[in-house]
């Protein structure tokens, strides 16, 4: 047993290859080099082969004139714009559906999810039927239903349904008056912004005051007065600078006003109601995960049912609701590519459709499109993860 007298650091003797730290870093480096090399040789090879077959490559096409029209553009676009601009137009159209769809789906989903747990038989049954019907039908069918079934029932532009002679609903979509900003309209816009800011500050102040003194302030009414009142005062002071251009029927279609195209309405409604069915189930499971003792405790403190739900149950349910909710938001964004089925000019239809066909640069365009969805999804997931951290249960 002479070993006892030997050097204590037995590990120092062994080769550094056996060091787990060196090993893991080394293996990862080798893996990285292999992946990078494969990717590089794949790209090089593809480029050589494409060139040999005389198939155009590269991203230069983005600066070429697109030459086709798009019927919903959030930024100025014409047939003389470039493919690059057509890409942005398509991307913004996708984002519009995603943002509006997520907003509506969240509201409907929470209402239906809470409705599923209602003590009222009618509300509970209706909510259950909603969830079971909508989540069990493929989204493309729902989009086509909202588009073709509802569209066929709509009258033509000459017989459109008129609301107060200002808003017109027909198979061309919903035409609403366009606001025209005159002199001093900027002041009104500033007033709206200021009102919203003041409302937020007031809510914070009211909340901290309630924490300190226990006195409750009518936040809702004060804020409503702020948000409606301040712009109104600004409008009166500047002499009503905002007027509205009422759409007029001229020739085939309405001229003037803003047209909300039926493709947008159908796609957004279909995706929002479909996704809402899943969100409703997330909300229900989240609420049920909060133990009943919490409700009893809240009731015994004298909170009313609505207050219990809003102040005690929902905040605790959120940490269960948020992670699957993120997935639903991602699904909705990605499902928006079903737009191509009904002719809504989203990213896939405009860029991976028309632009791809006109330029023939399939590999570049599909790569860009996939990259965009990846980035959109990662951004959504990051935002939701940050929010999730905030509502997560902090354990000590």
């Amino acid at each position, binding site marked *: 047993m002479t070993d006892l007298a030997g050097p204590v650091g037995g590990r120092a003797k062994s080769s550094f290859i056996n060091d787990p730290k060196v090993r893991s870093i080394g293996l990862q480096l080798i893996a990285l080099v292999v992946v990078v090399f494969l990717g590089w040789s*794949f790209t090089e*090879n*593809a480029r050589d082969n494409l060139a040999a*077959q005389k198939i155009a490559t590269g991203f230069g096409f983005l600066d070429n004139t697109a030459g086709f029209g*798009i019927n919903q553009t959030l930024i100025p676009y014409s047939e003389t714009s470039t493919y690059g601009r057509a890409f942005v137009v398509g991307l913004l159209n996708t984002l519009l559906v995603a943002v509006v769809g997520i907003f509506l789906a969240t509201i409907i989903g929470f209402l239906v999810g809470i409705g599923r747990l209602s003590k009222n038989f009618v509300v509970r049954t209706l909510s259950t039927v909603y969830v079971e019907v909508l989540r069990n039908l493929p989204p493309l069918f729902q989009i086509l239903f909202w588009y073709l079934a509802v569209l066929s029932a709509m009258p*033509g532009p000459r017989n459109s349904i008129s609301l107060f002679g200002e808003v017109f609903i027909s198979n061309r979509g919903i035409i609403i008056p366009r606001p025209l900003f005159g002199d001093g309209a900027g002041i009104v816009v500033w007033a709206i912004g200021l009102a919203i800011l003041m409302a937020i500050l007031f809510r914070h102040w009211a909340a901290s005051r309630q924490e300190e003194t226990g006195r409750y302030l009518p936040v809702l009414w004060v804020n409503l007065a702020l948000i409606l009142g301040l712009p109104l005062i600004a409008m009166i002071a500047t002499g009503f600078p905002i007027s509205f251009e009422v759409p007029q029927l001229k020739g*085939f279609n309405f001229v003037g006003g803003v047209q909300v195209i039926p493709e947008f309405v159908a796609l957004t409604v279909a995706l929002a109601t479909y996704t809402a069915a899943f969100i409703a189930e997330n909300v229900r499971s989240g609420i049920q995960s909060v133990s009943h003792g919490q409700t009893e405790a809240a009731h015994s403190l004298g909170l009313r049912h609505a207050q219990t739900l809003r102040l005690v149950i929902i905040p605790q349910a959120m940490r269960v609701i948020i992670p699957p909710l993120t997935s639903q938001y991602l699904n909705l964004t990605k499902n928006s590519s079903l737009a191509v089925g009904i002719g809504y000019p989203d990213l896939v239809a405009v860029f991976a*459709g028309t632009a791809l*066909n006109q330029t023939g640069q*399939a590999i570049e365009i599909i790569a860009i499109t996939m990259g965009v969805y990846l980035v959109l999804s990662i951004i959504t997931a990051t935002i939701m993860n940050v929010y999730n951290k905030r509502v997560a249960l902090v354990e000590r």
Partner: protein
Amino acid sequence: MKRLLSTFALAGAMGLCAFGAQAATKLEQVKSKGFVQCGVSQGRPGFSNPNDKGEWSGLDVEFCRAVAAAIFGDATKVKFTPLSAKDRFTALQSGDIDILSRNTTWTITRDTSLGLNFTGVTYYDGQGFMIRKDKKVNSALELSGASVCTQTGTTTEQNLADYFRANNMTYEVIAFATNDEVVKAYDAGRCDVLTTDRSGLAGERLKLTNPDDHIVLPEIISKEPLGPVVAHGDDQWFDIVKWVLYAQLNAEELGVNSKNVDEQLKSAVNPEIKRLLGTEGKYGEGMGIGNDWGYLIIKNVGNYAEIYDRTVGPDTPLKLVRGLNALWNKGGIQYAPPIR
């Protein structure tokens, strides 16, 4: 989905195949698998349309059968791949199909930058407009402000934009992925006008609830020479596909059809007919196929006039007169180089 798969197949084929490696020629590949893989439309009456038993018919379909007849002596050795307008070129580039015969317009971009070769013109067409009769429009120049339905991924979108711009008119375009959706949206009243090639309009009209309520406006706003397409880089295959069409046109010019071809084979004295049917000269050899290739095409499928008449001609529901597609010596512009 199909498009994505094709794109991956294309990326895979381009990225993985060793550069410059000599694969088997297209003709060898076709012969070894035993059939021609032909890309067609997802349903365009008169050109490529499946019936309720899944049997394809139409001008474009007959062309692929003629290629199969020339190679195998059997017009049934074809498999059809229905493709949307957007997916068609990728399918050809990636080698999923051997021939694209899908009312495809010959343009310089497609011919020179997509790695494709157009082999000729099977149908001279032009873009037109269809509108409801009760809109009381008689000319395309009265269409300012109209909503127009069309299919995405076609030359029509660009022609439409050009025409309205050139005539200082405004329009709203709604572009759908497939033809059926275009027709449904037009039928539902989403748009005032449906635009595509005039031969297509004749076919789409049949799908509407009341075909007689719609008219095709007289204006032809573009040149649409439609023809078969092959991938760039295999000249032998390019030659075969090219000459199948020429053989059919020459047969019509010489008065050889599927009914009299056997008799002509035995008794013809005209050397042009003899060369077409392969009893004189060895013209199949240069293309790597049998010298009786011309006979096999005419016998199994027919000459150009026969195909035209039974798919899109005046006696079919499409009722398209020959017009530009008549032979050059009968007032049209169909003209084939001689077989000699």
